């Protein structure tokens, strides 16, 4: 063994290992680790790879269901969608890299999540991105947004997987830590799912894809620490993406998977060759021996330490059946990909690395995996926020408030973003970005998937449990609103430093709420990712548990969207309205206050109301539907009107409620539906015990309130479309006019408000 004795506890501390963790590593080896081994322990036991702070809480989430084929623990979750098909999906963050180098950080986030999905044998069919940036007032925000969006587009467009949805929000808590969470959805045959557990001692271990370079060394460790003001200096730890190689890898892997050559497969993500080799060996209860001299290298003179910790992108590790090399060779040569046999599976249970004729590392795999530290970090609940009495707020003109809300960065159209993503490639896009959920066809007989990402971080800050439950419920509601049956979700837990009890308290609360909602809605978690330490100089992001939801549509003919369809149709409000303004967007944008308790989440009502709406959509009684969320009822009607290019006339508010509480309150479990047959819908609602009331009629070219206030649909659209292009062109907020004088910045002829268009991205790794 080479270089075994110069590693000290101080050097281990620089690698992010505590003294206790270092002692544990020494105990496992029975000696002091050498540098390569220290690097391996450090990466495997980083927060990013080990989930040491979050593991005990993640275990409490429901992960099973009649359709679940594979829950958390593999590269992605797998859910049965009938007819021998399965949907494979996962969300992952690339937060830290995207802040340091937005284009490459976001691009490689997309690349990483694509690999997680096609590694399982699935062809990727959709990408969604959930993005959160700091205050638009900071010049850096524009730079980050521009870089992240073009990075996502640059990668996704090139590999030819449509980016179909997501979200984009702004809040000053993300000033020093933006969030980029990317979700990928793939389609596989349910009996052809590929897993990562090594099998068959003696089987060859194959490396395929890009050559290994010195980029991204210790990315996992970077993603497991807070930023201080030296974030810029960490740029060399951000990887560089090559979507062309990824495209070749997708096609080559899927082609090879048609045969029987592959026994196990794993992509090289965070902690590169280290984590892929260790995870494959660990899951199979076997050993792996690698000859690092065989690894395709981009530059000469790389050490074992560098080879094992490089996070060069677009690389896969495979274990083949004996003799499978010929098949692999044929496919990889066709696709002009580098590959090499770099080792073999062993019965020793040890990870043995050889280089230049010497043993560079020798670690027992089982303890490296199972003795990884698990922490029960101390946590503290936040004191609850006061309720806001709507009657205490000043009276304001609702039309003026509506204009300010739909022009706010939060609700302004995100068309500028999603038009930079190819959302049409593959030719299956049923409902384009801008609706409650994107709908992607998966079979010629009309089966489709509904996809959405959701989170309301301000609710999570006020009450993490309510916020966690609300995120799950809103995801379920968005899928329901297009007529889909919600199947399962993937979660991306973005939080601050877990070593602070109040942050850990936010995490614990969010998980509690999510758990409750998942159980009540039969909506299990099948994959996910945790990104901690999202704070800079001690200031943490809002707790942001992003939910990526997947729903099933039996036939795309039964899908509805939010566009108003026909003059003379009736608008019906489903669900109870109490005028809850605490934590609302109205309070924040109009009254300038972030105070108050988040809205209660009644999961029984959520389930009952949603099941009712879905049933009515499928029965053909509802022709348009929109869930109520940020901005409440009036914003929802305005979005329906802008999308449909058609006006509406609203009835008076519920008696006893201040007008703006009725119009802008954010009570949960609510939908607006459009119907030509209000009698049938209202009668069925009564029979089902679902609160429902007529709130207006479709028609005209303006949105008109019962007090006579009105605004034309054209004016609404212009207001809604203006902010983001103007902002990105460097103009001050909300100033009307042509962004950069270029015609393509403004598309007022195209309608949809589309604020949920596809975006957000990656830091802790798989679980």
């Amino acid at each position, binding site marked *: 063994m080479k270089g075994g004795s110069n590693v000290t506890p101080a050097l281990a501390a620089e690698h992010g290992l505590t003294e206790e963790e270092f002692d544990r590593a020494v105990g496992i080896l029975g000696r002091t680790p050498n540098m390569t081994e220290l690097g391996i322990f450090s990466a495997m036991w980083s927060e990013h790879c080990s989930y040491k702070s979050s593991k005990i809480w993640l275990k409490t989430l429901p992960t099973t269901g009649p359709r679940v084929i594979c829950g958390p623990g593999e590269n992605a979750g797998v859910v049965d969608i009938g007819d021998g098909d399965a949907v494979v999906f996962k969300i992952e963050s690339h937060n830290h890299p995207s802040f340091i180098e937005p284009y490459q950080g976001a691009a490689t986030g997309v690349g990483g999540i694509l690999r997680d999905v096609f590694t399982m044998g699935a062809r990727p069919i959709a990408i969604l991105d959930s993005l959160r940036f700091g205050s638009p007032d900071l010049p850096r925000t524009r730079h980050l947004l521009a870089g992240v969006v*073009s990075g996502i*587009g*640059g990668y996704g*467009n*090139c*590999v*030819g997987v449509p980016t179909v949805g997501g979200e984009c929000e702004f809040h000053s808590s993300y000033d020093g830590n933006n969030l980029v969470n990317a979700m990928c959805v793939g389609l596989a045959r349910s009996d052809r799912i590929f897993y990562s557990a090594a099998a068959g001692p003696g089987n060859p271990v194959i490396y395929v894809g890009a050559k290994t370079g010195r980029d991204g060394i210790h990315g996992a460790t970077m993603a497991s620490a807070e930023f201080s003001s030296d974030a810029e200096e960490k740029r060399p730890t951000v990887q560089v993406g*090559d*979507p*062309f*190689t990824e*495209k*070749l890898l997708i096609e080559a892997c899927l082609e090879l998977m048609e045969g029987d050559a592959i026994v196990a497969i794993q992509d090289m993500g965070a902690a590169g060759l280290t984590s892929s080799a260790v995870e494959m060996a660990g899951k199979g209860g076997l050993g792996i021996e690698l000859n690092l001299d065989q690894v395709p290298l981009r530059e000469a003179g790389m050490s074992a330490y560098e080879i094992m910790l490089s996070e060069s992108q677009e690389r896969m590790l495979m274990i083949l059946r004996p003799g499978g090399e010929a098949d692999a060779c044929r496919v990889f040569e*066709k*696709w*002009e990909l580098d590959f090499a046999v770099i080792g073999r599976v062993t019965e020793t249970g040890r990870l043995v690395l050889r280089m230049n004729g010497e043993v560079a590392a020798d670690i027992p795999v089982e303890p490296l995996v199972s003795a990884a530290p698990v922490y029960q970090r101390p946590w503290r609940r936040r004191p609850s926020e006061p309720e806001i009495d709507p009657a205490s707020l000043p009276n304001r003109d609702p039309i003026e408030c509506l204009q300010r809300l739909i022009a706010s960065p939060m609700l302004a159209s995100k068309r500028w973003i*999603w*038009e*930079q*993503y*190819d*959302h*049409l*490639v*593959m*030719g*299956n*896009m*049923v409902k*384009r970005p801008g609706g409650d959920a994107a709908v992607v*066809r998966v079979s010629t007989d*009309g089966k489709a998937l509904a996809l959405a990402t959701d989170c309301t971080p301000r609710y999570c800050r006020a009450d993490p449990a309510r916020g966690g439950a609300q995120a799950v419920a809103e995801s379920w509601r968005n899928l329901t609103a297009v007529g889909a049956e919600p199947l399962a979700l993937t979660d991306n837990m973005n939080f601050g430093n877990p070593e602070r009890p109040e942050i850990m308290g936010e995490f614990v609360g969010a998980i509690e709420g999510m758990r409750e909602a998942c159980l009540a809605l039969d909506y299990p978690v099948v994959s996910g990712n945790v990104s901690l330490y999202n704070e800079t100089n001690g200031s943490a992001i809002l707790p942001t548990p992003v939910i990526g939801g997947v729903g099933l549509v039996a036939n*795309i*003919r039964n899908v509805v969207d939010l566009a108003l369809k026909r003059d003379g149709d009736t608008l019906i409000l489903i669900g109870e309205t109490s005028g809850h303004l605490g934590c609302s967007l109205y309070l924040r944008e109009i009254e300038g206050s972030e105070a108050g308790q988040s809205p209660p989440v009644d999961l029984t009502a959520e389930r009952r109301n949603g099941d009712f709406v879905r049933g009515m959509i499928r029965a053909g009684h509802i022709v348009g539907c929109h869930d109520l969320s940020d901005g409440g009822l009036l914003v929802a009607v305005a979005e329906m009107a802008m999308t449909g290019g058609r006006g509406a006339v609203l009835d008076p508010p519920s008696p006893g409620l201040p007008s703006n509480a009725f119009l802008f309150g954010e009570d949960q479990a609510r939908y607006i539906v459009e119907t030509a047959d209000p009698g049938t819908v209202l009668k069925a609602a009564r029979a089902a015990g679902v609160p429902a009331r007529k709130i207006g009629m479709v028609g005209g070219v303006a949105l008109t309130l019962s007090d006579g206030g009105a605004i034309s649909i054209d004016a609404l659209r212009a207001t809604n479309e203006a902010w983001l292009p103007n902002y990105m062109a460097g103009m001050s907020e909300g100033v009307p006019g042509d962004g*950069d004088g*270029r*015609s*393509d*910045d403004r*598309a007022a*002829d*195209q309608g949809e408000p589309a604020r949920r268009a596809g975006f957000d991205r990656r830091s802790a790794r798989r679980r």
Partner: protein
Amino acid sequence: MRAIVVMFPGSNRERDVCAALALVTGHEPVRVWHRDATIPESDLIVLPGGFAYGDYLRCGAMAAHSPVMCEVRDRAARGIPVLGICNGFQILAEARMLPGALLPNRSLRFTCRDVHLRVENNQTIFTCGYQAGQAIRVPVAHHDGNYTADAETLDRLEDKGLVAFRYCGPDGGVSETANFNGSARAIAGIFNNSRTVLGLMPHLENAVDPLLGGTDGRAFFEGLVGALQ
């Protein structure tokens, strides 16, 4: 009607055009790998959209030098129709099978959205499914679709009826606003001299199904298949 779709490493819209052709002909076109030793005889050759060779260097530059392009050029010379869509158009331009070049969009951003096109010449096998002057609504999805050529070439294209499509408004009117990517004379697609080679940026193949956002591209494939049968 036998069609082949040529696949380069990085092609990614072959599914879309195969589906559109299959919808009209009832059978899937044959996909050909760019390194295949022999290419089957066909009535139509399609170069699909995508990012051949990653569009590294210049869009279409490396694919234009792929050996298969010699065969495509020979067959085009024999009169076999060739259709290049988006990246396929860029490859045909780089291969000098069509004049001009595709520069980055005026906005310098990738743009995916529905646009309107005016059919400039319907007296060709490709456009015979449309009325002359008809405005159709179809999607674009590209970063480098800003068509450019010298004035002499542009005049020649115009004079000989070799402009296939122009970007326009919903009413068919050509304007700088409608010309979203800044193309010379708002050109979205052009023919070769014999009008048997067409290169165009928009994705007509993504507008063939009423449930998937529109059907204005369908007449293109119906007309083309009809003309070749």
